[in-house]
């Protein structure tokens, strides 16, 4: 139904408060499977996602299904079929779970989508009347994922979905994403390399706002030296921050 790539990013740059946080980033996301964006803390991964959506000041080209969307407003881009699961969940704390989900329905959502969400997150059905701000981190992440999965999407942009979650919940989130990725391509920002190993087919590594590596996920993860050099952590190590990361971490904030 479309070209091989659902999303193409060409020469994307972005600024926050006048400071450049993304430098000339280019990559593609194929029409199926999970593409992971890796890199140390604060190198511009989150900013890249936000720039794609037009949430921050940007320049460069963004093509969705071969169509330039970089001049469009955020809500237009999203309505073209982009599901966004932001860093730190960003659920509406004062709204109930049901209201959070109702707000996210874009009109195109069908009974099928609602059923899927209800099956994936039975906990949310039980807590429909609860204020989202009173949920646990894991439950909030479920709300955030559910908001994206309620709609017919061409692509999901998922930003650090396992950040700060207990190991058991991390597994749950990874399973949900794996299920989602069977029907829609996913662009995933993730620090946890085990999750990347489980889900991702391709990786894009960003450092200091620039793409420094792209290729199959296996090739990167099987090369400990490369992992150490690009990400500053040993493959399989859980610590999501990495010690050297601290120096670059403040750059984008």
């Amino acid at each position, binding site marked *: 139904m479309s070209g091989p790539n659902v999303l193409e990013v060409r020469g994307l740059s972005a600024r926050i408060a006048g400071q450049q946080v993304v430098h000339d980033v280019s990559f593609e996301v194929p029409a199926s499977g999970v593409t992971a964006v890796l890199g140390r803390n604060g190198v511009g991964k989150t900013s890249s996602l936000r720039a794609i959506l037009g949430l921050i000041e940007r320049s460069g080209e963004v093509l969705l299904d071969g169509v330039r969307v970089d001049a469009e407003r955020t*809500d237009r881009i999203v309505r073209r079929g982009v599901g966004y699961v932001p860093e730190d969940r960003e659920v509406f704390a004062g709204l109930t779970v049901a209201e959070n989900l109702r707000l996210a329905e874009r009109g195109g959502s069908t009974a099928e989508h609602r059923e899927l969400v209800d099956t994936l997150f039975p906990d949310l059905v039980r807590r429909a009347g609860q204020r989202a701000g009173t949920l646990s981190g894991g439950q909030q992440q479920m709300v955030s994922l559910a908001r994206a999965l309620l709609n017919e999407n061409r692509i999901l942009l998922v930003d650090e979905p396992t950040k700060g979650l207990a190991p058991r919940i991390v597994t749950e989130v990874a399973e949900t994403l794996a299920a989602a990725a069977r029907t829609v391509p996913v662009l995933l920002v993730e620090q946890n390399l085990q999750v990347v190993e489980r889900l991702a087919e391709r990786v894009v590594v960003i450092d200091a706002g620039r793409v420094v590596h792209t290729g199959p996920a296996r090739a990167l993860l099987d090369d400990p030296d490369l992992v150490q050099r690009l990400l500053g952590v040993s493959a399989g190590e859980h610590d999501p921050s990495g010690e050297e990361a601290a120096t670059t971490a403040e750059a984008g904030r």
Partner: protein
Amino acid sequence: MSTLILLLATGLGLGGLYFLVASGLSLIYGLMGVLNFAHGSFLTLGAFVGLAAGNLVGAGTWGGLLLGLVVGALTGAAAATATELGLIRPLYDRHIEQVLVTVGLSLATVALFEGIWGPNPRNVTRTEWLASTTDVLGAHVPNTAFLNVLAAAAVLGGIVAFLRYTRYGLIIRAGVENRAMVTALGIDVRRAFTLVFAVGGAAAGLGGVLATQSLNYVSPHMGASLLIFAFIVTVIGGMGSLTGAAVASVVVAVLQQLANFYLNNTGDLIVVLLLALVLLVRPSGLMGRPA
């Protein structure tokens, strides 16, 4: 005792007026981050146009007042909508410039109103009932106080119901919390902006006509003087909090009345002191979220 009751009742009535202005200010600020200096002009315009419409039916009749209230609210809403679409939207997300534009608009419109209707207050003709008082436990409470409280309660109930039960209400509540995320869910939040301006303008226009009944005059400057207290109410209540605005309206107005009577006409000063005190203890206001 009867004096205290009278002061409380007139305080509540004044609080109702404050709330009609502050509710719109608070909603607009909460959703859009815009401090609307032109809000007083919506009120004044609503008052003049509403009264003129009422006079067509008959000055001092209930029919005239009712029509005046409706026309006043519609005028306020229309002026606010035009302001949002024409002046605020082109400066999307440039908050300082948006505030500046409303400042310019308020200066220009007050001058224009002076040019059209003259700089001095004009007396209005009220219905017999509104011009008189009702005996409550020995206090002669002006009937306008009841009307103000009734109208403010109706507007509060209406806005709360709108926010709770409609999709736009949902969008506005979510937008006050996190506007960027609302757009990231595919929602054109700008329509909600126009809507809160319209709703706020309607409340202000309604408040304008009601204020003429309480003050017994209409003047190009009535909006500006109410606006300053509405600002104070908004800050004390917590910017963006509707309940905060409602509570603070009553507190500020009652305190003002009490101080004016018992403390040698110092109501306005006491209100400013209250503002300073609230800021020292709770910089985000009574019900505002910490910044």
